[in-house]
């Protein structure tokens, strides 16, 4: 194995996913489905363990393995472990018909493979490979209920727009390769910092950022978000919003040197997303779309922290020990914990056609456990204490202020204040509105209720002890 050893986690997960895909058609029974679910969970756990094991003790920044494909830097490994945890959570929380279990769990594992490649990519080709493995699994997961019209529509929409974005990304990569003569991100970084960038390199990085903006759904490239979020299965929507975007953010940490030249583009992405996402959410009555707009705003908050970079500034006023990148890590964890649960809970509640606020009425009485969990998740998304989302925002904004940005955190604070309105609207409809004549239909198994409850407890516990996330990060 030699220096290919660090590729072991990716191999385990990809081969396991293939294995499960082959097991799937054996028999349509609940036993097989449960068996596949536990095997998938085992594979994710084995991958995470291998990931930690092979990277243990490699502390030098951005060492390259497998002929320079992946990095073993601690931050990236930690990101990968978090994404595997989101996959494991989804395997437990998702509902799937018996006959499709093989495909479903297999695609979730392939999605995880894409995420851990993308999160640890040290090479432009690895970025593209990880991104496409991730995206192609997502196309299938979004269109999974292909007998439903909306599901197919969402799938094709995401596919065409993500393909469009990949085109920009790849063309940008080709231009960057042309200028610097290498695909290694670390070498590109050295060369880019040493010399003045020519126009071709600037265009290349610009195209790259357009592609990334599409994938992250930052305003003005956010148009696909509400439609796709609405039409995917609830648990998949949570993954699109949390870890698939998070993997993209992790992949671009080595590109932070771009802040020297392209910071204004990221600044604009952040500001427009925070304003646009929160304003667009105000008038919406379909719940999943409200959270879709809120996810646009959240990308704005994350990019604010991203602008603060990975160095500590000397004259930091607030929380001086937290760099922008660490704040981003904290936020990705906090946001994933909240949004996964929120979308999964909405997935369990059946609406007439699209789930509207009206459909939430009476859920508080019908299924108090689920409604209470949803309350906590939404509370955390709104960024109210003591939930973990509150500290996430504090760290992001203080990192940005420390780095010398003033307007951006201010816009972020105003945006969050506006956003509280639509989050509270969800809570009001859950608990305080009289139910309509027909009872809302809620389908959640006991296992799923326990998973939701565990997640809600985690959101509160991480909010009470936010240091836990940083100690987790330091453990790598």
């Amino acid at each position: 194995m030699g220096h290919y050893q660090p590729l072991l986690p990716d191999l385990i997960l990809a081969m396991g996913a293939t294995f499960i895909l082959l097991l799937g058609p054996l028999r349509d029974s609940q036993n097989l489905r449960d068996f596949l679910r536990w095997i998938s969970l085992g594979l994710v756990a084995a991958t995470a363990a291998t990931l930690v094991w092979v990277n243990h003790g490699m502390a030098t920044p951005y060492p390259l393995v497998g002929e320079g494909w992946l990095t073993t830097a601690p931050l990236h490994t930690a990101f990968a472990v978090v994404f595997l945890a989101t996959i494991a959570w989804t395997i437990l929380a998702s509902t799937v018909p018996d006959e499709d279990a093989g495909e479903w769990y297999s695609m979730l594992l392939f999605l995880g493979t894409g995420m851990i490649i993308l999160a640890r990519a040290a090479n432009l080709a690895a970025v593209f490979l990880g991104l496409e493995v991730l995206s192609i699994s997502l196309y299938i997961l979004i269109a999974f209920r292909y007998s439903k019209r909306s599901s197919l529509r969402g799938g094709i929409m995401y596919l065409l727009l993500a393909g469009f974005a990949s085109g920009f990304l790849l063309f940008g990569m080709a231009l960057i390769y042309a200028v610097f003569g290498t695909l290694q991100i670390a070498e590109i970084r050295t060369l880019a910092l040493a010399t003045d960038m020519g126009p071709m390199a600037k265009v290349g990085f610009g195209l790259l950022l357009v592609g990334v903006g599409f994938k992250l759904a930052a305003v003005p490239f956010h148009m696909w978000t509400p439609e796709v979020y609405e039409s995917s299965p609830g648990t998949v929507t949570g993954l699109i919003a949390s870890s698939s975007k998070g993997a993209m953010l992790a992949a671009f940490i080595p590109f932070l040197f771009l802040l020297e030249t392209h910071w204004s583009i990221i600044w604009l992405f952040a500001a427009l997303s925070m304003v646009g996402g929160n304003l667009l959410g105000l008038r919406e009555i379909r719940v999943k779309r409200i959270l879709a707009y809120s996810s646009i705003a959240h990308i704005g908050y994350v990019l604010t922290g991203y602008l603060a970079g990975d160095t500590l500034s000397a004259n930091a006023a607030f929380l001086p020990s937290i760099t922008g990148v660490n704040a981003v890590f904290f936020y990705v964890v906090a946001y994933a914990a909240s949004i996964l649960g929120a979308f999964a809970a909405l997935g369990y509640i059946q609406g007439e056609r699209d789930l509207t606020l009206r459909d939430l009425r009476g859920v508080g009485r019908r299924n108090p456990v689920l409604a209470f969990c949803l309350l906590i998740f939404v509370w955390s998304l709104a960024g109210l204490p003591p939930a973990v989302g509150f500290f996430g925002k504090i760290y992001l904004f203080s990192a940005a202020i420390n780095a010398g940005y003033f307007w951006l955190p201010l816009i972020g604070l105003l945006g969050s204040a506006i956003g509280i309105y639509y989050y509270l609207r969800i809570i009001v409809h859950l608990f305080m509105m009289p139910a309509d004549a027909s009872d809302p239909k809620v389908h959640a198994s006991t296992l799923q209720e326990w998973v939701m409850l565990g997640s809600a407890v985690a959101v509160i516990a991480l909010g009470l002890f936010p240091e836990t996330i940083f100690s987790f990060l330091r453990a790598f």
Partner: protein
Amino acid sequence: MGPIGLQHYLVLGAILFVLGVIGIVSRKNAVGILISIELMLNAANINLIAFSRYSNKPIFPTTMPEAAYMDGQVFAIFVIILAACEAAVALAIILNLFNMFGTIEVDDADTMRG
């Protein structure tokens, strides 16, 4: 006109890329858009291969001298494979779309409403 050099490939790549973008923006047919996406990806491929051929920087001069100059071409092979996977999934979805709606015009709001 001198012999064919790097800039010819660059211009070809740029033209194909722009054609792809125009195709995506102007077309409504899902297969048409898919073809335009492939055009964009292959424009990038042409660039990658041309740069790989014309750049003179070996990537692993000490460990793998025979692999020098190859990384752009290897990247292009990855892109071709991934584009094929994407097309396979896309065509499966488009086929189902056609069965359900009787059309593959993607932003036909009336027919595509659930």
